[in-house]
């Protein structure tokens, strides 16, 4: 896996093909849109999607933790997909091995479980979060909001590239707009939406095991 260190807003952002960012100055892993519990939610309703997705997603997170040794994990919304189910309990057990790391959740539209439950899972819930004047909020904003920079999720962004011979390629991406950056969805059982960035925006696509700057 080859990441890309993006020096931006006087900070070092390690953009990782595992669909997360390691923020060097804060020793924080930033990710978004895990949608934990989504597969179980479907299966409970009689829709037989494969059962092993949550394990893989959390295993990937586990590998990132052991590699980058973060002190905190910032999740920019949609950590859980819906109501409580057994995959949420699976997360509780998984969580215990990293009880020294704090998990900060910036609430997304899918995060609808009761507050007490997040407490049991050792997850601190915020409406928004600001560190070093960097702001975290689930839904992206178009205009300046007074902070130095903002990170969001929600969209599950993908980028489409066109080229000679009428070629076309579509990949998940990290997006950095003028005021707001958008993270790719971390969870595997999630779709994606096409972005239409300005030419001045930075876009990094996730090409299998590496990160490539697309514009």
């Amino acid at each position, binding site marked *: 896996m080859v990441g890309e260190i993006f020096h931006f807003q006087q900070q070092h952002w390690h953009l990782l093909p595992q669909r997360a960012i390691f923020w060097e100055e804060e020793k924080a892993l930033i990710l978004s849109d895990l949608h934990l519990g*989504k*597969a*179980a*939610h*479907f*299966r*409970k*309703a*009689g*829709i*037989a*999607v*494969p*059962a*092993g*997705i949550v*394990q*893989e997603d959390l295993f990937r997170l586990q590998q990132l933790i052991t590699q980058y040794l973060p002190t905190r994990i910032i999740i920019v919304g949609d950590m859980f*997909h*819906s109501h409580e*189910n*057994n995959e949420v*309990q*699976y997360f509780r057990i998984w969580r215990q091995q990293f009880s020294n790391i704090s998990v900060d959740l910036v609430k997304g539209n*899918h995060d609808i479980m009761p507050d007490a439950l997040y407490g049991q899972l050792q997850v601190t819930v915020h409406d928004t979060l600001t560190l070093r004047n960097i702001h975290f909020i689930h839904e992206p904003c178009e205009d300046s909001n007074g902070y130095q920079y903002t990170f969001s999720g929600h969209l599950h962004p993908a980028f489409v*590239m*066109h*080229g*000679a*011979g*009428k*070629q*076309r*390629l579509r*990949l998940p991406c990290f997006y950095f707009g003028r005021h707001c950056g958008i993270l790719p969805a971390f969870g*595997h*059982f*999630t*779709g994606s939406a096409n972005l239409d960035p300005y030419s001045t925006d930075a876009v990094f*696509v996730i*090409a*299998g095991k*590496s990160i*490539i*700057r*697309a*514009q």
Partner: protein
Amino acid sequence: MQQRSGGWKVINKWLGDKDLKPFKFQEEAWKAYLQGKSGIVNAPTGFGKTFSLFLGAVIAWIDAHPKDYTHKTKNGLQLLWITPLRALAKDLGRAMESALQELDVPWEVGIRSGDTSVAIRAAQKKQMPEVLIITPESLHLLLAQKEYPKVFTRLHTVVVDEWHELMGSKRGVMVELALSRLKGLRREQLRLWGISATIGNLDEALEVLLGPYHNDGIIIRSKLKKKIALKSVIPDEMENYPWAGHLGLKMLPQSLPVIHDSQTTLIFTNTRSQSERWYQSLLVEDPMLAGALALHHGSIDMELRIWVEEALHNGILKAVVCTASLDLGVDFRPVDSVIQVGSPKGVARFLQRAGRSGHQPGAVSKIFFLPTHALELVEAAALKAAMEEELIESKMPVILAYDVLLQYLMTLAVSDGFHANEIWEEVRQTFCYQHLTEDDWQWLLAFLTTGGDALASYDEFKKIERTGDFYICRSRMMAMRHRLHIGTIVSDAMLKVKFMSGGYVGVIEEGFISRLQVGDSFTLAGRNLEYVLIKDMTVLVRKSNSKKSIVPSYQGGRIPLSSNLGRKLREKFNEALSRNTKDPELIALQPLFNLQEELSHIPQANELLIEQIQTEDGYHLFVYPFEGRLVHEVMAALLAYRIGRIRPITFSIAMNDYGFELLSDQPIPLTADNAKQLFSTDNLLTELQTSVNATEMARRKFRDIAVIAGLIFQGYPGKHKANRHLQSSASLLFNVFGDYDPQNLLLRQAFNEVFFYQMEEARLRETLERIAVSKIVITFPQKLTPFCFPIKVDSLRDTMTSEKLEDRIKKLITNG
């Protein structure tokens, strides 16, 4: 003739009183029916196919109750009549009712379809009519009701109408499954009959209907023939003719004389968007048609369609622009001409459409062929030849449709539950599932009870419960959801279109609307509409005066050329080349052929033409096998894959029914030396499977499969928002199954459908074998040729690459 029974005499007298005599095939059908046989009746439309079976059942009833048949009522369901079209049911029911009334048989005729009201359903539950006309979907809904076997305790006959239409589709599989259950319930007492138009594989159609193990099936063929007159409308100016005007609008003025000289004309187009454009352009060209011209296609409001059909009956319309929506169906007597715009792509479909005119027995069906681009004139010539030789296509039956079987098992589980062994025996007797393995069967049961391989003990999968051999669904919510989802016709999510001021226009694909901006104008049901907003799955619009309006394109509108027609087409090109033809179509095309010959070459039947052309778009390679777009799609992918092994290269691929194009940003290394090898049959299957496009094609197939198998939650009517957390796209499911459950049978089915139906592997192999003994002619035209132009302008494209992902991205970035 044999001794006529009492019932037979009653029928003969009734017909005699009207100065009618049964056709020979009708008498043959009655005889076979009275002997207790099952089978298929094959006759052209307009000759009383319905009565060949319906009256058979009436004769048997009179014979069984000679004394009291005129006043015996409430006899329970005797005859089940399965029809693919709701619109057919009403007319059919009327015809049966009037016959019964005149015969003094007090049977009731009921209809059961998506349109049947709740009150009527409830009344039917209390007392079933003797005859029930039903769609395949509604029949499965009956099987999804508690205590459904009670409905069928007196049933002795099932007739499947338009079997040739149902057979090649998953709706046909639904019929096979329902029949297997009815046979299980009624055993020897059930007679099964199909009614079919002529198709290439009628014997196979019988096997599919009765199951591969039947032993007494009979096919009754009428000797009656429909006379068909085909005339091509040849463009006035051939040189200026657009080579690729898909819609054929330039030819529209030449259709007016046909419309004016006929009582009523049906104008068949191949897509809904084309029909919209034709409707509007006809009104512009001839404003006198206003009020006498109508539009009919699958996206138009049902009530409006019914109105159009009634108006056709009554002869108040001069012309109707329509799509396959009027292919089947009731006879509109006033229709005396049919115009086919663009290629019908197959002989069977062409005959079917021609048969929509001149419906009286003995009348001539008149059909005019109006080409949308010049080369289609060759198709007209080919069609004529194929019709003369009666080269009618076969319908390939669907096999091992796991998705439909999963849906069916769930249907049985939500009603009374089922014993797996009993159903297994029944299912194995069907044509579709005769080769279903025990392992696959166990997998399917597990998929419904434990949700596949559940790895973890904390899994909460819930659907069907199992006790020993007995499977049942006890969740009322899931049962309700399942009943709403029964069926195999999958369309893109459709939204209703309504005026702000009220008034329903029709339905439109969600995908199309999502590309519009508020204020944009689009065309539906022949009207210009301005998009205002979407609310509760409804698109609100107002009338628009905008000159510029977008015509929605609908998915799945493209029909591939059949192999029969492809072969005839190659023969006709040969004939054209001989300069020794009497076909007016080919003579008209001579200037175009001359240009093709001058710029490149016209391939003979034993040649394969390849053109290499360089334009500002890049390097083009055009290949012309004349095998239809499905085969071309696969061949193009295969060729791209094989060239990609010579050196890393990326292609975008386009195709039509005559040939295909590979377009690249670098020169394409195909030469006279390696051409033969690139088209060889060596390692065909493995190379097809490794080609990227197989996965992409399977992904498209998986969409329908996922919906049919109940993996896509479509929400409840009017309640779509409450379940947002259960929504996912089929494409996403395809990804997660591929990553986490690659052995999944539904995934395998998607690939099977690609290889057997879409790729038509057998046909591809034949084509390659033909090429192996052909001469390959490579030309390097200085500009685009008449042959390649229609392909080049096609915007639907696939991609095929052998370059590394990183390299491709880097190139795209530097070029973009």
